[in-house]
């Protein structure tokens, strides 16, 4: 199996661990990820509100390159990239005016895009293409007893719900159940917002959201929170000291990309998964997993 792969900007900065672990995990599963040539920022979620057409064009450039590379699917790891690219597709399909405008913009840089590249979240590929049965076959270190809080975030299944339930996603639950982990399936805050970019503009509001998430995780007895988005991950992990300062709490919960923890279960070297790069030490998690 082979997929064209779009890492997204975060993968080169705060989200290095997500990129590294995604690649390592897929390699272990015998899937090769081929990086999209000359990709650019997806435009992220806020640009839509500023200049809508430009943001579609920026997103569509990536899809145009995918088309040019002869692929009709593009694997994405970041929830925001996933939603942004898929949204561009959807608007182009539903509104001929958007389609024409984007074509015009792409034409100006000598590109064209027909709207036929399907944007796939890496979780979608894991669950639906590779399949849990196949995944489970590769599990070499069962995560028995490890309490995992599956945190999906906002844009994993909203608004599209393309491969999981919009309100109550369960794919991550099922993935880690397949590793033998003790998944907190009733994790109440699994789709609550982490505060996103508000951490930079309205820190108090964002910290409040993070605080609630961390409380929910602790209430569930989580040993580790797994995330599917670089922004969620960084907010939950790196801002724990700020949360503690604001709310007088003492959170020190390891937060990992779900691909990191899944990689561990498949026996991938923690270094290759960039687990040592995490802000909150994952030593407790590593210690809990049998060799």
């Amino acid at each position, binding site marked *: 199996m082979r997929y064209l792969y779009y890492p997204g900007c975060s993968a080169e900065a705060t989200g290095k661990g997500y990129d590294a672990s995604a690649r390592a995990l897929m390699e272990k599963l015998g899937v090769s990820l081929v990086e999209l040539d000359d990709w650019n920022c997806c435009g992220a979620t806020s640009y839509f509100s500023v200049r809508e057409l430009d943001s579609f064009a920026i997103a569509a450039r990536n899809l145009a390159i995918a088309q040019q590379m002869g692929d009709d699917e593009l694997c994405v790891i970041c929830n925001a990239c996933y939603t942004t690219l898929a949204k561009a597709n959807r608007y182009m399909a539903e509104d001929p005016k958007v389609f024409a405008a984007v074509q015009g913009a792409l034409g100006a840089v000598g590109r064209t895009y027909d709207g036929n590249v399907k944007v796939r979240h890496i979780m979608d590929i894991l669950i639906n293409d590779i399949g849990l049965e196949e995944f489970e076959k590769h599990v070499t270190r069962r995560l028995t007893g490890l309490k995992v809080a599956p945190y999906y975030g906002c844009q994993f299944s909203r608004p599209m719900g393309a491969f999981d339930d919009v309100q*109550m996603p369960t794919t991550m639950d099922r993935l880690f159940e397949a590793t033998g982990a003790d998944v907190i399936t009733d994790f109440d*805050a699994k789709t609550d917002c982490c505060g996103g970019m508000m951490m930079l503009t309205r820190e108090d509001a964002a910290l409040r959201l993070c605080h*609630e998430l961390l*409380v929910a995780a602790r*209430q569930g007895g989580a040993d580790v929170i797994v995330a599917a988005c670089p922004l969620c991950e960084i907010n939950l992990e790196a801002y724990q000291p700020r949360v503690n300062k604001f709310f007088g709490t003492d959170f020190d919960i390891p937060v990992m990309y779900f691909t990191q923890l899944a990689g561990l279960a498949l026996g991938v070297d923690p270094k290759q998964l960039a687990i040592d790069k995490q802000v909150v030490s994952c030593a407790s998690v590593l210690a809990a997993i049998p060799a």
Partner: protein
Amino acid sequence: MPEDKIAVYFCHCGSNIAGKVDVEKVTAWAAEQPNVVVSREYKYMCSDPGQDLIKEDIQKLGVNRVVVAACSPTMHEPTFRKAASDAGLNPYLLQMANVREHCSWVTEDKDEATEKAKRILNAQIHRLPFNEALDPIEVPVNPAVMVVGGGIAGIEAALKLSATGKKVYLVEKQPSIGGHMAMFDKTFPTLDCAACILTPKMSAAGKDPNIELLAYSEVEEVDGYVGNFKVKVRKKARYVNTDTCTGCAACLEACVVRKVPSEFDQGLGKRTAIYIPFPQAVPLRATIDAEKCLTLKGKKCKQPCTTACGPQAIDFEQQDEVLDFEVGAIIMATGFELWDPTPETRYSYGQLDNVITSLEFERISNASGPTGGHIVLKNGEAPKSVAILHCVGSRDENYQEHCSRVCCMYSLKFSHLIKEHLPETEVYELYIDMRAYGKGYEEFYKRLMDEGVHFVRGRAAEVSSVALSPEEEGRLVVKVEDTLLGIVRRIPADMVILSSGLAPAKDAKSVAQTFGFGCSANGFYLERHPKLEPVSTVTDGIFIAGCCQYPKDIPDTVAQAGAAAAGALALVDNPTVKVEPTVSYIDPEKCCGCHICVSVCPHTAIQYNEEKGVAEVITAACKGCGVCVAACGSNVPQQAGYLDDQIFAEIEGAMAL
């Protein structure tokens, strides 16, 4: 044949038509058309002076064909046909041109509306010379009525009809009549006990010599037509002889299968495999749940019920019976279903304890319910704080767009009951808008405000178990944006009641299909006219009442049941009924006996006469769809009122301009 003298009347309908269509212009134009001898316009053709115009022209000018360009024929065709008939003209020589609903109301531009009105009118002017005088067909009426659904609506309709001496068959699919109302504790806003006001009616219906109760039964097939319906009813096997069973409940005591979730108690209480749904059930007869009874499942059981039963009423060999009934009218009162809030996962119904539906709360607060009327949590403790979430599955584009009408009020009732039982308990009502529209409702709302209930304007965002403060520890937390205060609130609650909306019954569509009418977009039964015929359906002789039509409270339901009963009575109290003569007929001189019409008739109204070798229409059974006309290879069946020549003429008229 006398020459065709067509009169054209163009109605202004106030400004409804005249505001868009140049009435003078069209009327003048119509006067020039072939066969038209008089063309008039009038402010309101449906008024008496308007109708008099038609009558006078028929009598004085010898007009013998009439077209009234006005509203939809659904609205006033009977009015004008009656006027024509009063003046001595066969009513079927009058046609309507629908220039209101199909023209003035739907067209933006005045010139365009005027042109379209001409085309619509011209189609009818061309058609009229081909119209034939027709006589309504008179068929006998069976005086019996069937009421389907034994909730308050069905019971009320049955009692009203019985009081006039008519035979009534009351069909109920559950083992007892009573419906949802029997589950309620109190009723808003007067707080009468539901059982106190309902059970006398239930028992009256059960004892009424004119009412034949068909409980634990379902309608399988409906055939026939107004005044003459043939209904097949499946009487499900109770495995108990209802003639000998006395309802003593000794078998219930004896039954070894004791933990079946009780449907009547919303699964909160338990019943036995042989059961009586509730003590006041009518008929008060036991029923064996075939899916739970060990004997009926083929497992070993000592059958203590048989031993306990004095009159030896238990009969494991009993089979379903399919019974045939003939009635003149049918009243549908099949009720609603509570919307299941499981899909609304953010409210955690089914995931977190003590998040309950309104119907579950009805049972909890009911003295005869599973908690003996004590408002308690799952652990048996009394809640210190209760949040009531309005509009769950109502006024929500994701689920049901409609307002369920009763939730605001029953939520207020819940608040009152909680305050009454547990004065110290905090009660929060989370509402979008408070709709207290009925008699005494606003006053009730005000009373609740005075009773200290907290009203929070905002649709609840989420019900969570994550505690952010010691106060929230171990409780439910309702997140809501209080839109009056402009803040996001976290309301700790021990119990969350989801005021679920009313949904159409899951089988509403298939039931409607069985009876030959339709459902509205929201899934409730479709009335014939939303304002003027709210209890009729498109099928003559079939009426609707209660929540199967749309959510409504008990007073409205009872009123509608009375209206439906009056509608049915107005039909079955006559020896005969006139049905539209737009039926098919077959000329035996032309029929070749190929059987095609026999094959396509949806109502088996065409039969093959072996002796004559031709097909014959059973006029009384023909409903006038005209399928046979289109299907016949040689146009032998003809449908009165919809002859090919009439349709061709309409096409020519419409296309001539």
